[in-house]
């Protein structure tokens, strides 16, 4: 088979065109890639710079803070030292003054306590004497009161004993009478019951005797009598 020459020319043209286009594309691609690479580099640099700044700021702040703290410490130690000195002096003066006061007061107290002791002793002796007198009069009064009360009580007791004797006697009499009455009632009831029982026995015995003693003809007669009585009483109407 032979290839058409026109077609062949056309093909060759097409291929050439494609190759040219590809060449331009490749050039553009590499150019873009290089630009991108450079941009990325720049970005990384900026980021590093940014990261470095706060760290530096922190370090600066830390150093400043440290300086301030050191200053403050120094000032505080100075103040403490001065106050300690002041304290020592004031302690010493206070101690001195206290000692003086103590001595003074000790003197006053001893004097006052001695005075009070004297007065107290006097008061006690006075009170003692008063109490002794009061006790003496009290015992006398109590003695008389007790004796009187005792006399009264004795009289009352005698009265009450007599009364209660009477009451007890009466009570016993009452109870006795009551019991007698109850006994009589019980006796009567028992008697009555016995009588009733005897009565019932008698009745029962009469029944039995009559039962056995009535002949057949007598029975007939009794029934006829009953019928006649019923007729008379108009039971059958």
């Amino acid at each position: 088979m032979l290839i058409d020459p026109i077609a062949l020319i056309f093909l060759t043209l097409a291929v050439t065109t494609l190759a040219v286009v590809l060449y331009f594309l490749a050039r553009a691609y590499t150019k873009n890639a290089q630009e991108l690479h450079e941009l990325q580099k720049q970005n990384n640099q900026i980021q590093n710079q940014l990261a470095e700044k706060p760290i530096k700021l922190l370090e600066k702040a830390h150093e400043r803070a440290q300086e301030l703290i050191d200053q403050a410490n120094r000032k505080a130690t100075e103040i403490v030292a001065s106050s300690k000195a002041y304290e020592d002096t004031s302690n010493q003066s206070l101690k001195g003054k206290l000692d003086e006061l103590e001595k003074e007061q000790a003197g006053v107290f001893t004097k006052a306590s001695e005075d009070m002791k004297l007065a107290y002793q006097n008061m006690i002796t006075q009170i003692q004497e008063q109490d002794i007198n009061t006790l003496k009069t009290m015992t006398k009064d109590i003695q008389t009161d007790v004796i009187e009360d005792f006399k009264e009580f004795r009289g009352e007791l005698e009265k009450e004993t007599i009364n209660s004797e009477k009451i007890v006697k009466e009570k016993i009499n009452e109870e006795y009478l009551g019991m007698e009455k109850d006994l009589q009632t019980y006796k009567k009831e028992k008697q009555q019951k016995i009588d009733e029982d005897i009565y019932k026995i008698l009745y029962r015995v009469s029944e039995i005797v009559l039962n056995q003693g009535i002949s057949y003809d007598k029975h007939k007669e009794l029934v006829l009598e009953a019928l006649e009585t019923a007729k008379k009483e108009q039971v059958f109407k």
Partner: protein
Amino acid sequence: MDSPALFDQLIILLRTTSDVASVLLVLQEFIDSFYSSKTHEEQQQIFKKLSPQISILLTEAFAKEPITPENQITIKRQIDDLSDTLQKCKKMIMTLAFQPDEETTTFFSEWIKKNVSKDLLLDFQFDKSIVGGAVIIVGGVYKDYSVKKQLSNKFQIQKEEIMGLLD
């Protein structure tokens, strides 16, 4: 014979409620025999269970001729009427302290029929504790004519006298 006339004749011969009960039982048996294969003679024999006089009367009334499907209904109706009348008879319950024999029963029954009413039937009950006499119950009325009652009354009236004897 019609039922009232038969009843009048029959009631004279009946003394007690047990007599009536026997008659009713026999009449029922007679009716039952209509529907069985009993012969005329066997049917007549049924009435022989009763006393001779009653037996003759009932045989004359119902079993003179053989029972046929034609006369069966009439005879049954007559018997039912007679039974109803007998059941409606009044009764008098007498409680006695002894067991009366036949002669005594007839004696009392005749007294009742003569002095009170022909169709009043007796019903005897036995209770030894009444000692003697009778307790009569008729028409809802209760009368105690027993010796026990009389004895009890006497004892009650003369209680003091009796108790005086004890002292």
